[in-house]
């Protein structure tokens, strides 16, 4: 079969019905394609929507043991909503059910992170990371005995954090490394999760360039990181 599609064109998942077939995942003996069509608004009988909701609920229930039935139902509905929202990203590279289970897993874990972020421990972790990010805004004079390659590269990196990052990038980078959830960081910075990732990615690229200007490439960094490892 010859496809008249440019190699870099996105795959239309609705055009890949041929490859899938029935799915028995989660006890759903419903065609994988029929479940997929639900998120594209195609379900004339409503059977596939019910089957997909059952599948998502089973994922949520398994990952949220101890949660009330009400909470499980809410998260299953939220998973379905997110699957519909993310449907254009599904490219047919996997079974639809595998992808949908991934969406539900992300929904459950995101809710867990949100609850932690609102807890006292979560707030205190975020506050500590903020303090640390503020402290890193001030360049630090390297100590005179910092002559090892490791000390030099870490001093250059610290300098980069102080001078090559914006305040928002510093908060995001330090927060992420200190285990502040993306839910908390994205909310604080008024960003989506994808935009937060881009902010941190841009920050890492800035730091990479700052290190290169000081003569430290990725190999030098790896050398330092492998010090002391067997």
């Amino acid at each position: 079969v010859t496809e008249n599609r440019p190699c870099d064109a996105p795959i239309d998942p609705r055009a890949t019905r041929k490859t899938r077939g029935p799915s028995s995942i989660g006890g759903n003996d419903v065609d994988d394609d029929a479940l997929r069509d639900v998120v594209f608004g195609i379900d004339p009988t409503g059977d596939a929507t019910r089957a997909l909701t059952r599948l998502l609920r089973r994922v949520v229930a398994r990952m949220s043991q101890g949660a009330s039935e009400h909470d499980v139902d809410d998260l299953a509905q939220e998973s379905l909503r997110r699957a519909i929202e993310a449907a254009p990203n599904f490219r047919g590279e996997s079974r639809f059910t595998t992808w949908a289970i991934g969406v539900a897993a992300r929904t459950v874990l995101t809710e867990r992170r949100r609850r932690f972020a609102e807890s006292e421990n979560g707030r205190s972790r975020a506050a500590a990371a903020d303090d640390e990010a503020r402290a890193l805004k001030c360049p630090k004079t390297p100590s005179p005995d910092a002559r090892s390659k490791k000390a030099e590269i870490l001093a250059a990196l610290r300098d980069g954090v102080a001078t090559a990052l914006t305040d928002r990038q510093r908060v995001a980078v330090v927060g992420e490394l200190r285990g502040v959830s993306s839910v908390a960081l994205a909310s604080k910075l008024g960003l989506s999760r994808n935009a937060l990732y881009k902010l941190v990615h841009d920050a890492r690229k800035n730091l990479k360039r700052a290190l290169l200007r000081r003569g430290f490439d990725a190999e030098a960094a790896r050398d330092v990181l492998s010090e002391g490892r067997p």
Partner: protein
Amino acid sequence: VSADERLLLDLLGAVSNTAESEIDCGEFLARAAAWVERGRTFGRDLSPWRDVLRHAALCPECEEEMEALRSLLDSADFAS
């Protein structure tokens, strides 16, 4: 290793693993299902999955979600 040094070492690891172009968390979710489903049967050629693996190494939450998906698929309840 002090907490300050640990932070800088972790950051150095992330910076050294940074590529000019990376997939975001949304794109990762779209591709992670295929990686988990078939990754282990692709043999040693990991090049089609470089972006996915790099993102998982740099984004602990996406890595956690991918491991959750893997664990669910490994369980009898969701095995196909």
